[in-house]
């Protein structure tokens, strides 16, 4: 491992991990994008990945539900498990895995279909419902949980792409929730949103954490500080420091973390 001499400081382990990553390395062709990362993601916690651009936080996030599989040159080494089960084992099918580990992307990406169909798509392809009324219930509860029900209940048949940016992102969150995942991965979910829409999404994350484990990648340190329980700081592919959010932002133990949160670079 070329110059991977940086050891993660802080506490990477938790008592009741939902997902665990052990000595994970990710390569894009020759590029060593993630270097020997070990971290636990706990039950019903919000963990934020922060770090300067190109540090590998999004890459690492995408390894957690194997979205990196779509990239031909990407190679993952090490072990990542969900509930103690290795998700990179040859026997694992990515389809149910991604149903258990949902994802929300940087840019809101609703399907060019109706609001109803956007939410119903996941349950439909996974065969979660036996009847139309059950599907209706799932759609309603997912929109309810995403705080969107009152805004869209009268126009479920209208295109999801016709909503405002913030509504679209909450629609995408509702779409992820609709298949009842255990973990929701969010890749800079607010970077394309205005402050008011951002506040709504953050509020939503706060509510969702009672039911789901949420991993959020963010560029905004304020956002990490506001929504997360724990924070992990990545730097050039290394996981530098993991700790309680409060501790990371008030009293980081690593110099690089200190430099980043005080705005010396990033």
């Amino acid at each position: 491992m070329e110059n991977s001499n940086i050891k993660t400081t802080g506490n990477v382990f938790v008592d009741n991990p939902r997902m665990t990553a052990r000595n994970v390395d990710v390569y894009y062709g020759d590029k060593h994008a993630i270097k020997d990362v070990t971290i636990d993601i706990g039950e019903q916690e919000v963990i934020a990945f922060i770090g300067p651009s190109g540090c590998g936080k999004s890459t690492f996030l995408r390894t957690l539900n194997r979205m990196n599989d779509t990239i031909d040159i990407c190679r993952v080494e090490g072990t990542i498990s969900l509930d103690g089960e290795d998700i990179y084992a040859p026997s694992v099918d990515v389809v149910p895995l991604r149903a258990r580990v949902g994802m929300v992307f940087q840019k809101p990406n609703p399907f060019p279909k109706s609001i109803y169909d956007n939410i119903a798509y996941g349950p439909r392809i996974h065969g979660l419902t036996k009847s139309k009324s059950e599907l209706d219930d799932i759609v309603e509860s997912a929109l309810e949980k995403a705080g969107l029900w009152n805004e869209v209940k009268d126009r479920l048949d209208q295109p999801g792409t016709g909503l405002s940016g913030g509504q679209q992102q909450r629609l995408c969150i509702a779409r992820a929730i609709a298949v009842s995942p255990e973990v929701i991965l969010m890749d800079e979910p607010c970077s394309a949103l205005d402050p008011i829409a951002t506040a709504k999404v953050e509020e939503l994350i706060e509510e969702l954490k009672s039911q789901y484990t949420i991993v959020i990648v963010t560029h905004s340190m304020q956002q990490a500080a506001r929504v997360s329980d724990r924070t992990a700081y990545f730097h050039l592919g290394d996981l530098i420091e993991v700790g309680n959010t409060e501790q990371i932002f008030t009293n980081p133990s690593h110099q690089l973390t200190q430099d980043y949160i005080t705005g010396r670079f990033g």
Partner: protein
Amino acid sequence: MTNKAFKGLSPQEATARVEASLKQRRKKEKRFRLMGLSAVVLALTFLVILFSGILTKGLPGMFQHYVQLDVVLDKARLDPQGDMSDASLFSGDADKIILEASLASIGEEGGRKTKKTLRKMVSSGGSQRLIEFVKANPELMGTTQTIKFAVDDDIDSFLRGFIKRETAEKDRRINDFTIEIVDKWQEAGLISYELSDYLFFGSASRDAEMAGIKGALFGSLLTLAICVSIAFPLGVAAAVYLEEIAPKNRWTEMIEININNLAAVPSVVFGIMGLAIFIVTFGMPRSIPLVGGIVLALMTLPTIIISSRAAIRAVPPSIRDAALGIGASKMQTIFHHVLPLAMPGMLTGTIIGMAQALGETAPLLMIGMVAFIVDIPGGFTDPATVLPVQIFMWADFAERMFIQKTSAAIIVLLAFLITMNAAAIMLRKKLERRW
């Protein structure tokens, strides 16, 4: 910096210089716009000239001259066996009855010369028409009916003024005696100029007045049906595989280059290939829409693959991420999201390919679809010809009337093309409306 001689421009100087250069720029812009405009105008002018040429030549070709004769429908002579079967009717005296009717029309008993002349003046398709009339109206048997028969193409050309009365008799295709009879018909008001039913409902014929495009039109339809039902699924499948599934390596790159090259291969080469593979090797019959369709499908495949790939590539990756992110399989992502979004683009490519195939002549000559086929093809394995080949054949015939028929057929071909394109645009609009 401050020590340098050049201290930068003052705002006033800068403004002045900008003003000066502005004039130049505006001039250039104006020239550029003018060039673009003149190019468009020029193209439009050519188009107008082309279309007006085709229309002025072709529209008269849609009409032809008929003569109306009072025909005595004598059952005993028309239907000698009395069972109204084709065999009986065709062995009847239809030709003679028409001749008698034309003699009556000029009020003459008629010597040999008159009979001989009159026989040549009514189209030889007259008896067929009479038999069809009798078959359609058996209850009129025994009465005298007025029926319109096409005049021979030379008479038609004379009536249109292409064969002139002033020309010396020996240089004319019709003699003075014939003209005399035509004059009698005209005086009696028997000649009419009407929309040609032969053009739209007739098939290939050596007689210009009876030649029609129905056979070629059916041939074109059958060929295109084969073409689209092979080329579209294959093209879309190839495009999906290359864009979404195939690993990006040297092999796929090679395939891509070769597909692009295929798009530039002259169509006649596909014809030779079709001849060598389907007719010589596989022993399929010549002149059939099945082989024609396959050859045209091979020819249009590259076009469809290239445009389909472009359409697939234009689907935003975020849609794929979204589908994969909630656990759709690759297949589901492709069929539920990528294909529906790419469909308008794919259809456009397909229609362009089909339009190209519709107008194609060369490869079809190679596989024998240029044969003289009178029967209207009823299936994919019946000998047939297609519209552009029919046009090509007619353009080669000497009779004056074929020139108009050729132009008329070109109008039909163009109308066909325009309808196809319009359908494509409408289909596209309809599919695109799904956001």
